[in-house]
């Protein structure tokens, strides 16, 4: 009997081990379930930091899904405000939600954005057999019949993937942007299958989400939302060169608690810079369709502040928030 009990306890102890955190190792919170971009950020950056010796112990990744990152944000602000061993994965989605006040009153200045080391360029794609050859073809079609074009994207209504086509159409002079249909599905790949299947006319997403489908020839990218054409994808024209001045990239980066010292803040910024300079990260970026986008330290903080106020203004204009 006691032997059996011991076995049961031992089993649970072994299983429990995986979940507990070593006391001294740094922790990276991925504010989503395993599988998404935030999880990738934590795991990849954490792994490289350890591999290149920027940290002494492997970084423990914790998944804290909830409220589109809001739960983790609240947790950091209210319970871990001075934890110098904590980093949290963030992206454009974080700043979008902060701008739209989707974190129940939390604001961007309650944490410190420490840096971004890569960005996923926004793209607009259509199915390979679509009649729309350029961004302007698509815009003309929307002007002719705003309800006739539907976009699919991996974020919910009002999210970054939804804002991208709205920004484009607004700059192009479409009056009734609210009439344009958008469905939010579970991730970019799913959005592509809906578009290739002909259920929606175009897909709004990130470069990383479409790489495989571009190579296989299922989709055609009609615009990339960057300043310059993306290395490796030189045949995709930017929206800018097609006369629509919209730049929207999904940066991948980190924030840290507000209450840590400037030294600690700088320490993480330096570590992030080290990762950005490493060959491992360059390899990871290439494999995942990320473009170089390195902004660390205070430089990045002011970038985020700018983006937040821009998105807030835009969201109000197009009616996503009041």
């Amino acid at each position, binding site marked *: 009997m006691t032997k059996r009990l011991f076995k049961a306890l031992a089993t649970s102890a072994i299983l429990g081990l995986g979940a507990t955190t070593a006391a001294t190792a740094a922790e990276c919170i991925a504010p989503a379930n395993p599988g998404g971009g935030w999880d990738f950020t934590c795991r990849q950056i954490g*792994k490289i930091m350890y591999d290149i010796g920027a940290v002494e112990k492997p970084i423990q*990744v914790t998944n804290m899904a909830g409220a589109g990152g809001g739960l983790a944000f609240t947790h950091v602000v209210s319970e871990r405000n001075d934890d110098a061993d904590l980093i949290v994965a963030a992206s454009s989605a974080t700043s979008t939600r902060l701008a739209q006040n989707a974190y129940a009153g939390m604001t961007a200045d309650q944490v410190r954005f420490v840096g971004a080391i890569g960005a996923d360029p926004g793209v607009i794609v259509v199915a390979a057999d679509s009649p729309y050859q350029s961004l302007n073809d698509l815009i003309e079609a929307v002007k002719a019949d705003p309800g006739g074009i539907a976009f699919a994207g991996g974020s919910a*209504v009002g999210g970054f993937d939804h804002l991208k086509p709205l920004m484009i159409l607004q700059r192009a002079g479409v009056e009734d942007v609210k009439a344009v249909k958008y469905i939010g599905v579970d991730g970019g790949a799913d959005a592509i299958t809906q578009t290739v299947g002909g259920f929606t006319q175009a897909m709004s997403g990130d470069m990383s989400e479409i790489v495989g489908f571009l190579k296989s020839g299922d989709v055609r990218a009609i615009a990339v939302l960057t300043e310059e054409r993306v290395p490796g994808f030189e045949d995709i024209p930017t929206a800018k060169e097609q006369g629509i001045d919209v730049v929207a990239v999904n940066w991948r980066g980190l924030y840290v608690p507000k209450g840590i010292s400037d030294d600690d803040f700088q320490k993480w910024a330096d570590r992030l810079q080290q990762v950005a300079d490493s060959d491992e990260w360059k390899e990871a970026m290439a494999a995942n369709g990320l473009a170089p986008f390195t902004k660390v330290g205070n430089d990045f903080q002011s970038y985020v502040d700018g983006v937040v106020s821009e998105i807030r203004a835009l969201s109000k204009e197009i009616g996503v928030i009041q």
Partner: protein
Amino acid sequence: MELFSNLAIGFDIALSPYTLMLAVIGCFIGTIIGALPGLGPSNGVAILIPLTFTMGLDATSALVLMTSVYYGAMYGGRISSILLNIPGDEPALMTTLDGYPMAKAGRAGDALVLSGVASFVGAFLATVGLMLLAPMLAQVAFLFGPAEYFALYLLAFATLGGMASNNQAKAAIASCIGLGIAMIGVDNNSGLPRLTGGNMHLFDGIDFLVAIVGLFAIAEVFFFIESHGKNTSIGVKLEKVTIPVKDIMASGWTMLRSSVVGFIAGVLPGAGASLGSFLAYMSEKSIAGEKGGFGTGVPRGIAAPEAGNNAAAGGALVPMLTLGVPGSGTTAVLLALLMTLNITPGPMLFTERPEVVWGLIASLLIANFVLLLMNVPMVKIFVKVLSVPPWVLLPGVTMISFVGIYSLSGSYFDLLLMVGFGVLGYVLRKLDVPTVPIILGILLGGHMEDALRRAMVLSNGDWTFLFSSGISITLWIIAVVGFVAPMFLRNILKKPQRITD
């Protein structure tokens, strides 16, 4: 011929002693993870991902280890379903319906062996299907738009009514409760929170695992306390394990049919293993008719969901590898692992990284045989973990449930919610309301609503859009027949059986 040379590459990688060892370890850990309530395959795999980094595994080895854990967990889920009437994970839910009654009738060993064999058949056929058909099947995903998905989920709900309980109204109430719970959270189509009471913890809705563990495991604890441990249903004795050749033979066709149904459900992104085992069970039940005795502990009622959910597990790898669209929660985690290893799944994976794909397929085949060996002759080892006396086991299960649920999001709120579900489960069982339809409502309701809402956005609210393709019309017809037929047949046939004791 190309297939064989590809397979040769795969086995070349998978058969090295080191990889083989990883497969065996993965299968063992996976089975335990699956068997423990609260630790489903997806969080099991997620917890183990850091391990692959610490061990410095290369892409193929890491993938072999993780998919062995995945397949192992799909096998293991049935163990606690059968012995404790607590599903080890979501897809094992349907296995409780016949597995537990059979175990109570003193045939726990038979049930475990039979379900082990069914799991093997399902997983094996699915792996073969993955191997032969993956690039072709990827096209199926393009045929399913919102209208088709809605019809598919509707089909599942239409057959729910005929599913169980001696009181249809109670089953209907239970599924409505489930649907109501599924509505909680941020609405994907407007971005606005619903029924959350402003509580951020509810923004993402309620995790199925929280509901399952609460309704089954925690409710069991309350019953245990009430009866002071007497007459507890927990802890079925397992005597000698023999191979029930007759039962296995008799359910051969069931396993084959269920594997096909499960595999197809797995291939469809967004359907997954739970729907696979559910549809497999329901289709077998309707084939068997009321005389089949489904719900009373018949072999076919165990073989069907187990073959179905394991086939779906293999099927779910198809869209993940070929499209980068995860077909289930666990494949979403595997997708993350692949991306971290700098492998981008998608249409080009089969041509660009053949060693990864075929190494994976070969190791799945190997893992399957390892699991068959582990789960049939050696099933006693796993059972021992669960066969301690109830007064020891139950607190143990509870403790593991708490750890498992806490690991989901690292928030105590989920624990409170789980206890809440336990109270709900206790009350409902007192009222003789079945809890299985509640879980199915939570599991499928959200997806069904999303599909409907998307269809309405695309069609400007024109409901005829729902019948606009051949696939959706076919699914609607099956759904309507599945819903109406039992009503007319009821007078002719005997009273339906109860699903739980």
